[in-house]
């Protein structure tokens, strides 16, 4: 799911003030790096407040 999809789902689920951190190259140097690169997959931290 893209970042924007995560944000929408979080907001649709009753959360506000969504913050998304910088991309992290989670799979860099790991065996799964090629697959991650193919779909531009990165790790992100998310924070939100329950409404």
């Amino acid at each position, binding site marked *: 799911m893209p970042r924007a999809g995560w944000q929408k789902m979080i907001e649709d689920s009753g*959360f506000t003030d969504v913050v998304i951190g910088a991309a*992290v190259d989670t799979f860099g140097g790991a065996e799964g790096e090629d697959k991650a690169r193919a779909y531009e997959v990165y790790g992100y931290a998310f924070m939100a407040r329950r409404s």
Partner: protein
Amino acid sequence: MADQTPVDPEALREQVRDKYRAVAVAPGATYHFHTGRRLAAHLAYDPELVDPLPDRAVESFAGVGNPFSLGRLALGARVVDVGSGAGFDSFVAAQQVGPEGRVVGVDMTAEMLKKSTETAETMGLDHVEFREGLAEDLPIEDGWADVVISNGVINLCADKRAVFAEIHRVLRPDGRLQFADIANGRPVPPEALRDIDLWTG
């Protein structure tokens, strides 16, 4: 990954169990993701919180980001760790909330639960416990938690909306959700979404 999965939810759950069962019992094996202390450093976890942990608390860590990077947990907070695995993030949280706080990790994999529970006992942590359960059906009472954390787990759940609804249920009003997960910048084609190996990696 997609909002709603085109794979069978129970088959996906079993694949995830198999994958993380292996990580629990053979943390030194090669996986398509990083694990352990190397991963914690890669994800910029605070060494002051990681270095004191015993190896068994860290070696099976297989998260995808750092849920603490956007905010430290408050002393005394009540925390739920969704998909707690071998307990690494729960043990980090336990140090941040202190002995007046409380951390409940929830996981569906027996081997992970056994490992995390034994590690907590070894560390003498009375304010940390681990419960068997699903992200879509957390064994936590309504409004109990000040904070819910999770790391690389929601992406592996077939019904993500159900997971967020459950997190909303267990959080108190104004409570905080802090989690890490993966996001793709390029669309994943439908045939790839049906590849269950992609979901577990």
